[in-house]
């Protein structure tokens, strides 16, 4: 027979175990994202509240950050041991954090999600290197050519498909003090993006050779810069200070006939009060000898950045939930007309297409999605990723090269040669 002391000990132990199970602390996850505008934070909150209510054992909270500071802030936070568990990213930011060993590969999760939802390959490719997948694609953004149908019609211009048609259109639209096209020439990321949109359309998409040496200086790149500088002459004179907002405003107030932008729908709808049927969007025109258009696309993704196994497991549950079509559309429409689906079933999701703005601009969004499938990103085109791309991107070398042509008056060939030297110098460090 069991002694009373032994019985009490076992009973106490069992009670502790039971109590521990019944009142187990939920796994807390912290997500850092860079979607700070209030309506995006609000939509994230709604989604997280819903997820947390449905998963009492997991509690996810958001801490919105800014792209401007996160490159310095995240490494410092991880070094201090208080980094997030999930972190939104773009391809070059992933290389920065992978370099300090905080990114956990997500091969199995991505494989599962891919079989379930079907990732658009262009959104996955920038995160597949060094034998692993380093982030789960979340939404895509791709540059397109935006115009007003009525303006093109009044000028007797067809939507340009090739560079020669594009130049002719810009010339014709440059009347009455208006600019035929609004292209930036600032030493800033937006200019990197628009210039690269030209480069991929002249066959100069690859920045690196297979061995990691820089492959910037080639005739296709020179051609892209040369054409960009010709087209930039039809842009407003203050374009050397532009970021995305100025270009968008130029288009919204009809000062610019065309612009290259990720999306203008929200501004067009809320600030320009434009007619949805009048808003036109098309692929970025390609060089005359090329056969199809390509563009720059930013596959935004989510990295797993916790070494804690329970948190990793919980994070995977959350990411799986987020990409379910019923939830995913609402995630994308936190910024309708800008964030594009990265999964095939996401592109068909009722939760995406039922959004008021997406419904109103359905044809434009369909074109944006189609364009995004042909997206590339500088430094992430060959299947091999070299760490120097982070510095090349951060120092805006592509835009700096453009300024040599547009501001300093150098020839495109000389500027590209200098750009090659600059990139090689960065890569050598």
């Amino acid at each position: 027979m069991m002694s009373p002391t032994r019985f009490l000990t076992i009973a106490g132990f069992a009670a502790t175990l039971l109590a521990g199970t019944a009142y187990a602390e939920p796994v807390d996850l912290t997500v850092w994202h860079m979607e700070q505008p209030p309506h995006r934070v609000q939509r994230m909150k709604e989604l997280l509240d819903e997820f947390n209510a449905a998963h009492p054992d997991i509690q996810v909270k958001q801490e919105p950050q800014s792209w401007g500071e996160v490159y310095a802030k995240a490494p410092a936070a991880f070094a201090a041991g208080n980094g997030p568990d999930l972190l939104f990213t773009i391809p070059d930011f992933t290389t920065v954090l992978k370099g300090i060993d905080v990114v956990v590969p997500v091969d199995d999760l991505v494989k599962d999600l891919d079989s379930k939802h079907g990732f658009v390959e262009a959104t996955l490719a920038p995160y597949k290197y060094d034998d692993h997948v380093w982030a789960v694609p979340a939404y895509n953004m791709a540059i397109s050519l935006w115009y007003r149908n009525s303006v093109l019609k009044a000028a007797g211009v067809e939507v340009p498909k090739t560079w020669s048609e594009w130049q002719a259109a810009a010339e014709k639209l440059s009347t009455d003090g208006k600019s035929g096209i609004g292209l930036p020439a600032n030493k800033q990321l937006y200019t990197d993006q628009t210039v690269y949109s030209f480069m991929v359309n002249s066959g100069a998409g690859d920045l690196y050779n297979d061995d990691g040496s820089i492959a910037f200086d080639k005739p296709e790149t020179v051609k892209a810069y040369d054409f960009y500088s010709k087209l930039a002459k039809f842009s407003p004179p203050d374009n050397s200070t532009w970021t995305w907002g100025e270009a968008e405003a130029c288009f919204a107030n009809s000062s610019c006939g065309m612009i290259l932008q990720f999306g203008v729908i929200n501004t067009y709808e809320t600030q320009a009060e434009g007619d949805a049927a009048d808003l036109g969007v098309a692929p970025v025109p390609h060089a005359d000898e090329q056969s199809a258009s390509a563009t720059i696309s930013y596959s935004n993704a989510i990295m797993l950045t916790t070494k804690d196994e329970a948190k990793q497991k919980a994070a995977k549950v959350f990411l799986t939930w987020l990409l379910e079509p019923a939830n995913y559309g609402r995630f994308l429409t936190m910024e309708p007309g800008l964030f594009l689906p990265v999964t095939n079933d996401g592109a068909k999701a009722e939760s995406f297409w039922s959004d008021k703005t997406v419904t109103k601009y359905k044809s434009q969004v369909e074109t944006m999605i189609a364009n995004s499938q042909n997206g590339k990103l500088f430094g992430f085109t060959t299947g091999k990723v070299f760490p120097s791309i982070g510095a090349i991107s951060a120092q805006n070398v592509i835009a700096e090269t453009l300024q040599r042509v547009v501001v300093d008056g150098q020839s495109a060939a000389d500027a590209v040669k200098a750009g090659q030297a600059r990139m090689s110098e960065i890569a050598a460090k």
Partner: protein
Amino acid sequence: MRRTFGQSLSLYGGVLVIVLAIGLPFWWVLTGSIKLPKEIIQRVPTMVPHSFTLQHFEKLLQASDFPIYLLNSMVVALFSTAFTVLLALPAAYAFFRMEFPGRNALYKTILLAYAFPGVVVLIPLYGLFAKVGLTDSPVALVIVNVAFALPFSIWMMRSFLATVPREIEEAAVVDGAPTTTILIRILMPLIAPGIASVAIFAFISSWTEFLFASVLIVSDARRTIPVGFAGIIGQYQIDWGLLLAGATAAIIPVVALFALVGRWFVSGLTDGAVK
């Protein structure tokens, strides 16, 4: 002496140019914040609003965390100001009046600290604050703001102290007043404009501080205006009305402070300068 017509014309013309150069951007921001979006983004800006709306302020106050940022900024700026003044006054007095070994070297070293770019110490400071559990805390911001405002504040305060005739202090010493009494009862009232100047300097430095606030603060609920506001604006798409309403609301406390103690500030700067 009477001014000639040409001199008057040059004088008033110059004043007008300066007023326009300083005032027009403010005017554009203020009036823009009450225009309809379509008017704000017009190709040719309208200097006098053709429309009127409070929708941007409504959005700012109801749909964003701007009121929280405003409150956080207030708390951080007021505490930073108070500590800066409280530390700068005795420190400046010590450098000005007291004799101790290495006084001049220390004074120069403090000024050197003012010349240090903040970004150099950003990451080490983050690590330091993380170790003592002060990241994501307004206390960290107050410490940083005080540390960066203090050198120049000491230098300013020392200049104001130099304007006080030594005889006044000597009279107090003869009457048996200790150092703290001399500082608090005699010197403080005499250099009140200087204290106001230092306070305004410290307040504005803290109010506009972005770098450390952007890195040391993690959660949205603890952000100050410059950082929170930068996030509200957005990157790829800018809500210009919201931006202008936020800029207007952000300058109101500074304008109010200047309205209260602005006259002291100007006389304080002048007093310090003519010594």
